[in-house]
């Protein structure tokens, strides 16, 4: 549903894990981007972006993910995504992001282990 957008974060040993729920679109992307910008200034940790509870993402959401990925790369911090959604994987492919070293894992434990 559109209204159920929320973000929470936990700090693991190796990474910050950001869990997003709801639709990521032109309305919610700025909130996510603002949250992630604050996170980028919060120390040297890697980031796992858990999108298990994201049922919809569009080009503005992908733009935010690419922004995060580039900023983390510049700071030599690792980044991975968690999602089982075939639709999400499909639009990553359409956008050409699977060629940009953005890795998607089906389990959070696997995403953490990759960093």
């Amino acid at each position, binding site marked *: *549903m*559109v209204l159920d957008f929320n973000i929470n974060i936990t700090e693991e040993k190796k990474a910050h894990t950001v869990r997003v729920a709801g*639709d990521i*679109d*032109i*309305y919610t992307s700025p909130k996510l981007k603002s949250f992630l910008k604050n996170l980028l200034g919060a120390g040297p940790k890697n980031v796992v972006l858990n999108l298990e509870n994201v049922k*919809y993402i*569009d*080009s*503005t959401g*992908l*733009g935010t993910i*690419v*922004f995060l990925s580039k900023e983390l790369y510049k700071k030599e911090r690792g980044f991975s995504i968690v999602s089982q959604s*075939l*639709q999400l994987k499909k*639009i990553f492919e*359409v*956008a050409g992001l699977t060629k940009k070293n953005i890795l998607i894992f089906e389990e959070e434990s696997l995403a953490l282990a990759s960093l």
Partner: protein
Amino acid sequence: MKKTDVKTTAKCISIKIPCYSEYVGVVRLAVSGLATRMNFSIEDIEDIKIAVSEACTNSVQYAYTEKENKYIDILCNSYKDKLELIVSDTGIGFDLNTVTNSRKVIEKDKLGLGLGITFMKSLMDKTDIISTIGQGTTIKMTKKLSVPRK
């Protein structure tokens, strides 16, 4: 009216939203409901949701410099064998031939309109974009039903 005319007549749903980002999700839910009623597959419904959202997002982001009292019109024509979506604004318009390159330079953080167009063209069976500088933009998209309705 001839019998063949009846078969090709669309049932039309018209939606008009203020040109603000919070209403794009409302259109997405409404169009998703229509596509479900038309018996599109789950994968096709997801494609349609993205395409109509991208068209509305384009208008919200680029059509109007002042959004007060500005609207986006969404026309959903439901046929027996396809869904036709027409999203239009009366904003500043853009030059489709140059938009991708220029926006890539201007908006480094965003994937921008170029990706929105890629999604619409990739996920729908047919996408036509007509934009005139100073007059607005109309995006017409069609998704065919794999099994036409009776």
